[in-house]
């Protein structure tokens, strides 16, 4: 769920709680309010009634009888004056709800009662208003309030959505420019994202600092490998040239030549170990660019054709069944060549005469898997665990034990999972799996 949407859901939720609470309280509030206004209205009516009585005299209304009554046509309101005995007035409330029967209609009224004396006689004035009318008003008010509230609710939701989107815009911009679009090595010449939100300014600055420290560490590592490379390889280069020149000496006897050749071979081995270690360091520190699109079938065919004489020498049949049009993006041609060259070379070297090698591929879901199977002498179970360790020795002599470490490093560099299954004297199967969508 997007942050913007989440925030809006929270906002809407909190508003709904408040509105719900308000709706629950609404009848109580409106009831109270309508009664309050009705009571006020009844008191005004009473004042008016007394003014009329004062002006016209009570007898004008009573016309000699003991009581007077008047009501509107629909019996919403009524007024009554009645002579009472004082004893019946105990516990009289000024305003209360009571049932009255007016002209055979029974209805509930809110009634104001007022006792007054006239010619030493007690009279009671009743002004009533039908409860039904009161409830009608109250209901009307409630509906109007609710509708208004809902309209306001939707307006605020929309406002929230646009405001939060606007407020979060710098955030998306940071994510996009700093994380999504940046690929190592980072381009550090960028301007801060424009925003007035302190948190985003902080985030942007933190990301920049992180990128700078990563770049620094990467540069240090690269400088180190370059320097180590120079310091280690230059002496080897000097000795090597000296031996090579000595070998050209015409006065050299055969014994000396042989000794020099042995020295040269040893030096060659040392040179290869150093170069392999530096190669590993460069892969592990990410100095190879991942920007090539590799046609796997082409690479494998090339390797097989380069190794053809070795295959013929041992009479090994090779079966290459890889999709011809398959292309892998984000690779490095050189490293991928190294990876497969090492594996196929091993499959030949440790194979038996007259054996075979199979290179196949398949999809398992979105996983693309390549398997290289040989019919060689296999790897002992104890050795399988340490096969990728640097300088581990098993099998043949004279290897520097870095070939499989290089394979592992390259595979890890491209998120390729590598698995080895082996049966002694029967053969080895190496599988490489990577995430790749079938075309």
């Amino acid at each position, binding site marked *: 769920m997007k942050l913007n949407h989440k925030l809006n859901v929270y906002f809407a939720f909190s508003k709904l709680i408040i509105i719900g609470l308000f709706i629950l309280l609404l009848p109580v509030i409106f009831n109270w309010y309508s009664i309050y206004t009705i009571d006020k209205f009844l008191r005004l009516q009473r004042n008016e009634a007394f003014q009329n009585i004062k002006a016209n005299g009570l007898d004008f209304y009573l016309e000699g009888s003991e009581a007077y009554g008047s009501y509107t046509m629909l019996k919403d309101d009524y007024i009554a004056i009645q002579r009472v005995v004082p004893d019946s007035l105990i516990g009289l409330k000024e305003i209360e709800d009571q049932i009255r029967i007016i002209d055979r209609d029974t209805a509930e009224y809110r009634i104001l009662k007022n006792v007054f004396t006239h010619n030493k006689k007690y009279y009671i004035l009743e002004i009533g208003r039908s409860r039904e009318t009161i409830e009608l008003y109250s209901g009307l008010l409630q509906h109007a309030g609710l509708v208004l509230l809902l309209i306001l609710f939707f307006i605020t939701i929309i406002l929230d959505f646009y405001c939060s989107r606007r407020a979060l815009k710098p955030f998306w911009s940071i994510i996009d420019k700093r994380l999504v679009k940046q690929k190592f090595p980072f381009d550090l010449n960028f301007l801060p994202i424009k925003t007035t939100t302190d948190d985003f300014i902080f985030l942007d600055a933190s990301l920049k600092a992180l990128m700078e420290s990563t770049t620094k560490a990467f540069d240090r590592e*690269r400088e180190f*490998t*370059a320097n180590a*490379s*120079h310091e*280690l*390889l*230059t002496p*080897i*280069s*000097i000795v*090597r*040239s*000296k031996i*090579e*020149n000595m*070998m*050209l000496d015409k006065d050299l006897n*055969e014994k000396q*030549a*042989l000794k020099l*050749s*042995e020295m*040269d*071979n040893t*030096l*060659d081995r040392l*040179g*290869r170990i150093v*170069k*392999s270690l*530096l*190669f590993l360091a*460069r892969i592990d520190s990410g*100095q*190879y660019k991942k920007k090539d699109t590799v046609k796997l079938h082409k690479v494998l065919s090339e390797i097989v*054709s*380069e190794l*053809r*004489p*070795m295959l*013929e*020498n041992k009479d090994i049949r090779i079966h290459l069944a890889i999709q011809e049009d398959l292309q892998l993006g984000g690779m490095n041609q*050189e490293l991928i*060549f*190294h990876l497969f*060259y*090492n594996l196929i*070379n091993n499959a*030949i*070297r440790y194979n038996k005469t007259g054996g075979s090698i199979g290179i196949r591929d398949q999809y398992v879901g979105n996983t693309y898997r390549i398997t290289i199977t040989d019919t060689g002498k296999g790897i002992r179970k104890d050795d399988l665990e340490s096969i990728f360790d640097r300088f581990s020795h098993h099998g043949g002599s*004279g*290897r*520097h034990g*870095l*070939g499989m470490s*290089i394979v592992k490093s390259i595979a890890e560099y491209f998120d390729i999972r590598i698995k080895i299954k082996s049966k002694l004297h029967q053969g080895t199967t190496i599988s490489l799996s990577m995430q790749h969508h079938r075309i």
Partner: protein
Amino acid sequence: MKVLLVENEHALSEEIVNFLAELQYDCETANTVKAAISILAERYFDVILLDLGLPDGDGLDVLKDIKMDQTDSIVVILSARGDIENRIEGLELGADDYLPKPFSLAELHARIQAIIRRKFATNGTVFQIGNFSVDIVMRMVYCKDQHISLYRKEFDILSYLILNKNRPLSRSQLYEHVWGDLSISNGDSNYIDVHIKNLRKKLTVYAPVDWLESVRGIGYKVNLSR
């Protein structure tokens, strides 16, 4: 052929100069960026061998200078840094080749020759050996006008031996030549022997190949009377 070697390791430059002088190259040396630029300002060199890690600066600065003044010169970078970016940068700046240390002197010679052939399309790229003629540029081998088909690596080995004729080349030198950067992968010591065996087999069908000699304990050599 005039060669300027820009290299600050005295021991190494001495060996390179000795080796190239033997092959009739006319060598001079410079051990700093400053020295190299001042020599280059005065004279022309056909080949400039350039180390990148110089005490007073980067060899690439010399390369920039060369590419402004002596555009015809062949430039081969010799570096122990092995930095990939550096290599790409060097080639982009106009270097003709990049030879990582520790290189073999025979390889250096072969590379220079290859660039000369490529750049100037010189004559004398067809060598006569016994009854065979080997065209280095067209990568063809003939025996009395009959074409003999060889695998790429077989031809690489043969031409490398011919270029360094009358001198034994070790298996590791040959392996490094044919595989270049890949030679760090644990190469099969048998690899060169297999190729030589196949070469002999393919060529003997047409004529004797007694000129391709095995040198005990060392490697192989091509005997070519001068």
